[in-house]
C-alpha cells in the first residue's frame, strides 16, 4: 500500500513538473498577414503599433513566451510613449485640438493582457499541436498520481474514525519546509495567473479542445483556472471521503460543495457562454462577487434580454433576501461550507492545513478589524460605482469610480482573495481569505451572530479541555474556551464545517439549528455541579 502511495506521489510530481515546465516551451511569432488580421480585429488607430509589433515579432519563430511578451509589451510601450510625447508637445504649445486628437491613438489595457491576446494567436509548438497528449501528461498524470497517493489511505489510515496521527510531525502539515515550498508555488501560481497571464498561455493551449467543446471558444487563463479548480476539488474530495468516511455530515457537505463548484461555478457559466448569454455563477453572491454592480456587468446584463434581467434581479434578491434568510435558519454554513467555491477549495485542498490557523486573541482582534474593513470597502466601492453609473458622474465625494474599482480589484480581488487567501494555506490555515478578507462572510457573520437559529451546542459538563476542537478549527475560533465553560458557541466567523464536533473525543459538540431562545447560554456554573443551582435559576428569572 505504501509503495502504491509513494508511486502515486512520484507520478503526481512528474505531472506537476511537466505542467510547470510546459510554460517554458513553445515558440511564438507571427507572419505579417497574421499580424494584420490581429490588428484589424483589435481596431487599433495607432499608426505606430503595427510597425513596432512587426519589428518585434514578425517572422521571429524562435521566441519563447518571456522574450515574446517582453517585446510585445515594449512595442505597446513605444507606441504609447510616442503619443504621450505628442500630447506633451501639444500641451506645451497649448494646441488643444491637436492634443485631444492624440488620445484615440493610445492603447489601453494591462500590458500582459495585451501580450496574452497576441500570444494566444502567435503560439506554436508541441503543446499546441498535441493538446490531447499534453492533457494526459499534465492533468492526467496529476490526477492519477494524486489518486494513487490518496486512495491507499482507505487501508493505511486503519479503521474508520478520526485519524489525525502525525499531522504535527510532518513537514507538509506542520509548517515545515514542504509547507513553505507549497506556499511559494501557490503564490507564484497566483501572481502569474493574475498579473502575467501571457506567461501561462501554454496552459490554455492544453485546454483549448475542451473549452471549444464546452463553450465553443478557445480557453482563456480563467478557463484554465476554473478547470484546475474543479479537478483539484474533485481529487481532494476523494481524500475527504476517505478521511471522514465515518461522518455523514462531512460526506454530504463535501458532496454539496463539489456539486456547486462543478455545476454552478463551472459548467453552467460555460454553457451559458456557448448559448451567447452572459456566463453567470448563480450562487456567487455580492459582495463576494464584487464586480456584480460594475458598469460593464450592468451593461452586459441589461443588453442580454430577459436572461440578463433575470440575473440582475436574482443577484439582488440573493444578497438581500436569500442569503440572510438562509443564515437565519441554518447559519452561514449553508453558504460558506456547503455552497461557496472559496469555501469548497478550503474544505478540500485546504483541509490538510486547517490546524495552522491562528487561535490567539490577537488574531481574533485583527480578524474583526480586517474583515469588516473589507466589507465597508466593498460597499463604499459599490455605492460610488452605482452613483456614477446612474448619474454619469466620474466620482462621488472625490472618490473616482474607476480608481476605487481598480484598487479593490487589485488589492482585494487579486491579492487578498487569491495570492494571500489561497497561497498562504500551508502556513496560515485554509481559511485565510474567508476568515480575514471575505466581505460576504463578514455580512453573513453579522447575521449569524445576532439573528440566527444556528449554534454549536456544548454538551453539559463533558468537556475535558483537550483542545482538539480549537486546534482543528479552520476559522481560528478557540472553541474550547466556550466548551469548557459549558457555553454554546455562537460566533460570527463559524462556517459550520463540523470538524470540531468530529474531532471531539467526548461527544461534546453538536451543530444545531434550534430556537433562538437559549441559544447563547452564559453559564456561571457547569451542569452537574449543584452549587446553589436553584438560587442561580431564581436569580436569572
Amino acid at each position, binding site marked *: 500500500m505504501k509503495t502504491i502511495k509513494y508511486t502515486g506521489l512520484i507520478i503526481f510530481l512528474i505531472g506537476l513538473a511537466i505542467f510547470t515546465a510546459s510554460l517554458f516551451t513553445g515558440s511564438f511569432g507571427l507572419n505579417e498577414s497574421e499580424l494584420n488580421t490581429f490588428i484589424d480585429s483589435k481596431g487599433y488607430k495607432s499608426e505606430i503599433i503595427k510597425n513596432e509589433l512587426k519589428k518585434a515579432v514578425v517572422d521571429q519563430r524562435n521566441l519563447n513566451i518571456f522574450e515574446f511578451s517582453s517585446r510585445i509589451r515594449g512595442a505597446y510601450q513605444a507606441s504609447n510613449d510616442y503619443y504621450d510625447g505628442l500630447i506633451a508637445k501639444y500641451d506645451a504649445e497649448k494646441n488643444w485640438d491637436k492634443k485631444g486628437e492624440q488620445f484615440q491613438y493610445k492603447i489601453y489595457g494591462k500590458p500582459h493582457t495585451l501580450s496574452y491576446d497576441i500570444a494566444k494567436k502567435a503560439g506554436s509548438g508541441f503543446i499546441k499541436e498535441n493538446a490531447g497528449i499534453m492533457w494526459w501528461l499534465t492533468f492526467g498524470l496529476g490526477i492519477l498520481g494524486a489518486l494513487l497517493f490518496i486512495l491507499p489511505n482507505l487501508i493505511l489510515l*486503519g*479503521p*474508520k*474514525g*478520526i485519524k*489525525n*496521527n*502525525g*499531522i*504535527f*510531525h*510532518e513537514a507538509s502539515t*506542520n509548517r515545515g519546509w514542504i509547507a513553505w515550498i507549497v506556499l511559494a508555488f501557490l503564490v507564484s501560481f497566483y501572481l502569474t495567473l493574475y498579473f502575467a497571464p501571457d506567461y501561462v498561455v501554454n496552459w490554455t493551449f492544453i485546454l483549448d479542445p475542451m473549452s471549444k467543446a464546452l463553450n465553443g471558444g478557445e480557453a482563456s487563463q480563467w478557463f484554465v483556472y476554473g478547470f484546475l479548480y474543479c479537478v483539484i476539488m474533485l481529487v481532494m474530495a476523494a481524500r475527504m471521503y476517505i478521511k471522514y468516511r*465515518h*461522518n*455523514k*455530515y462531512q460526506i*454530504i457537505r463535501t458532496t454539496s460543495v463539489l456539486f456547486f463548484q462543478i455545476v454552478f461555478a463551472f459548467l453552467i457559466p460555460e454553457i451559458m457562454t456557448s448559448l451567447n448569454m452572459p456566463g453567470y455563477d448563480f450562487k456567487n453572491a455580492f459582495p463576494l462577487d464584487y464586480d456584480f454592480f460594475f458598469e460593464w456587468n450592468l451593461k452586459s446584463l441589461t443588453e442580454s434580454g430577459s436572461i440578463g434581467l433575470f440575473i440582475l434581479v436574482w443577484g439582488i434578491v440573493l444578497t438581500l433576501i436569500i442569503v440572510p434568510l438562509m443564515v437565519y435558519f441554518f447559519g452561514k454554513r449553508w453558504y460558506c461550507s456547503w455552497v461557496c467555491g472559496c469555501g469548497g477549495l478550503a474544505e478540500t485542498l485546504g483541509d490538510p492545513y486547517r490546524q495552522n490557523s491562528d487561535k*490567539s*486573541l490577537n488574531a481574533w482582534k485583527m480578524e474583526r478589524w480586517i474583515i469588516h474593513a473589507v466589507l465597508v470597502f466593498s460597499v463604499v466601492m459599490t455605492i460610488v460605482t452605482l452613483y456614477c453609473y446612474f448619474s454619469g458622474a466620474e466620482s462621488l465625494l472625490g472618490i473616482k469610480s474607476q480608481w476605487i474599482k481598480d484598487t479593490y480589484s487589485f488589492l482585494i480581488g487579486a491579492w487578498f482573495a487569491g495570492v494571500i487567501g489561497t497561497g498562504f494555506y500551508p502556513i496560515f490555515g485554509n481559511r485565510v481569505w474567508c476568515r480575514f478578507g471575505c466581505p460576504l462572510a463578514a455580512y453573513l457573520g453579522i447575521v449569524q451572530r445576532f439573528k440566527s437559529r444556528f449554534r454549536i*451546542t456544548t*454538551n*453539559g*459538563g*463533558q468537556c*475535558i*479541555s*483537550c*483542545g*482538539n476542537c*480549537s*486546534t482543528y478549527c479552520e476559522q481560528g475560533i478557540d472553541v*474550547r*474556551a466556550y466548551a*469548557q465553560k459549558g457555553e454554546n458557541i455562537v460566533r460570527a466567523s463559524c462556517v459550520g464545517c*463540523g470538524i470540531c*464536533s*468530529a*474531532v471531539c*473525543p*467526548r*461527544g461534546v459538540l*453538536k*451543530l*444545531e439549528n*434550534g*430556537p433562538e*431562545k*437559549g441559544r447563547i*447560554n452564559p453559564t456561571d*456554573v*457547569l*451542569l*452537574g*455541579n*449543584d*452549587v*446553589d443551582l436553584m438560587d442561580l435559576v431564581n436569580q436569572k428569572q
Partner: protein
Amino acid sequence: MKHIVIIGNGISGVTAARHIRKLSDKKITIVSAETDYFFSRTALMYVYMGHMKFEHTQPYENWFWKKNNIELKKGYVKIVETKSKTLHFANGDALQYDKLIIATGSKPNKFGWPGQDLDGVMGMYHKQDLDNLEKYAPNNKVCKRAVIVGGGLIGIELAEMLHSRHIPVTFLVREASFWDAVLPKGESAMINREILSNGIDLRLGVNLKEIKADENGRVKSIIIQETGEEIPCNMVGLTAGVSPNIDFIKDSETSAELGRSIETGRGIKVNRYLETNISDIYAIGDCAEQHEGIDQRRPIEAVWYTGRMMGETVAQTICGNRIKYKPGHWFNSAKFIDIEYQTYGWVWAQPKDHESRFYWEHQDGKTCIHINYDKNTREFIGINTFGIRMRHEFFDNVLTQKHSVDYVLEHLADANFDPEFYKLHEKDIVAKFNKENNTNIQLKKKSWTRIFQTS
C-alpha cells in the same frame, strides 16, 4: 490582602484560582513543579500522536495569568508548616499563605514490582512522562515492543498512542476482561474486540511478575506471573490506576513542632466543604478524599470534571460563601480507540438486586447502549452509551425528575447528540425493548420545546 496559595496547576487548582479571581481581588499564587503553565492532562496523548502540539493543550494563552493577576511559581513544595502558615520548597525557598488549597492531583500506582524504577519504565500521567515516552519510544526502531501493565482508561490510551506510531504493544490486563470492574460484560467484550482489532496483543487475566534490565539499567523484558513467559520490550508503561499525589504532606507529618499535621488517608481527608482538619487549608481534585463517598461516588474521584467542580466550590467558600461540594448526578465519558463512550447515572458492572437491565448492540459490534432501571418502580438509574452521543442535559433532568425507563425510551430522539445526518438507531432500540419486555413504547419525534424545557 489575603494571600491564597494553590499547590498544583491542574484543572482543580486553576479553576479555583479563576473563580477566586472572579469573586475577589485576593492575592493568588499557583505553585507547580510540573510545568510553567496550565495544560490539559487528558490531551497529552494527542501530543504524542501528533494531533496537537503541546501548546495546544494549554487552554489559556501565556499572558492570561498576568492579566488576571494570578502569580505562578515553579517549585516543588517539600514541607507544609501549618503553624506559621509557610510552605518550604525543595530549593530552600519559603512562601507564606493565608489560605492554602492543595490540588496536587495523582501519581501513577506502582505495586512494588521488581524493576519498576528502571529506565524505560514510566506512567502516563505527567508532562515528564510524555518527554520520557519520546525518549524511550519515539518510533518502532528504538522501541521494538512496548508492554503496558494495567487495563484502565490510561492503559488503553497509552496502547492507542504507541499503536499510532506503529510500535507493537503487549497489553497486560489483570482482569478477565477489559475494565470489567466498571463496565458490564457486553461493553467490556466490545472494547476487548476493539483493542484486538487494532492489532494490539491483549493479554487478559495476567499479572506482571518482574521487569528485567539490560546491562545499562534499561528495560529489556518483562515476565508474566501466571505463565512465566518473558516478553522482550524496550518500554514498559505502568497504568494500574493512580493514587493521590500527597507524599509531601505525609513527609510534613513527621515534624511536630511545625504545627498540627494534615489528616490523610489515601488522600487528604476533607469534609463536604473541602476543608481539611486544619483551618484555612483545603484540598480539591484527585488528591482530596471525602470521609464518605457522596451519593454512590467513591471517596476519591480522579475525574476531570469533579476536579473542576471542586475548584468552583472551594472558590465560593474561600470568598465568603461557604457551600457544600455537591457533585450532582454521576456522568463521565471516554474514548476507547475509535469508540466513544458516555455514561449518565449508574450502570454497575454487576446489576444490583432491584435493578433490571436493557442491552442493545448494533450489528457493527461497535455501537451499543445499556440502560439500568429499577425493576419495581421502573425508575431510570443510568445509561452507558457506546458509539452514540447523548445529551447530558436530558439525562441530568431525567435523573433529577426520577423519570421512568419508558420515558427515556420514548424520548430517545431528544436525547440523541450525534452530528446531523447520522444514522439513528432509536427505532431499533425501542423495538428491541418492546419485544423483550412486552411493552408498547412509542418513540416520540424530537422536540425542541422539550429539549429546552429541561434547562
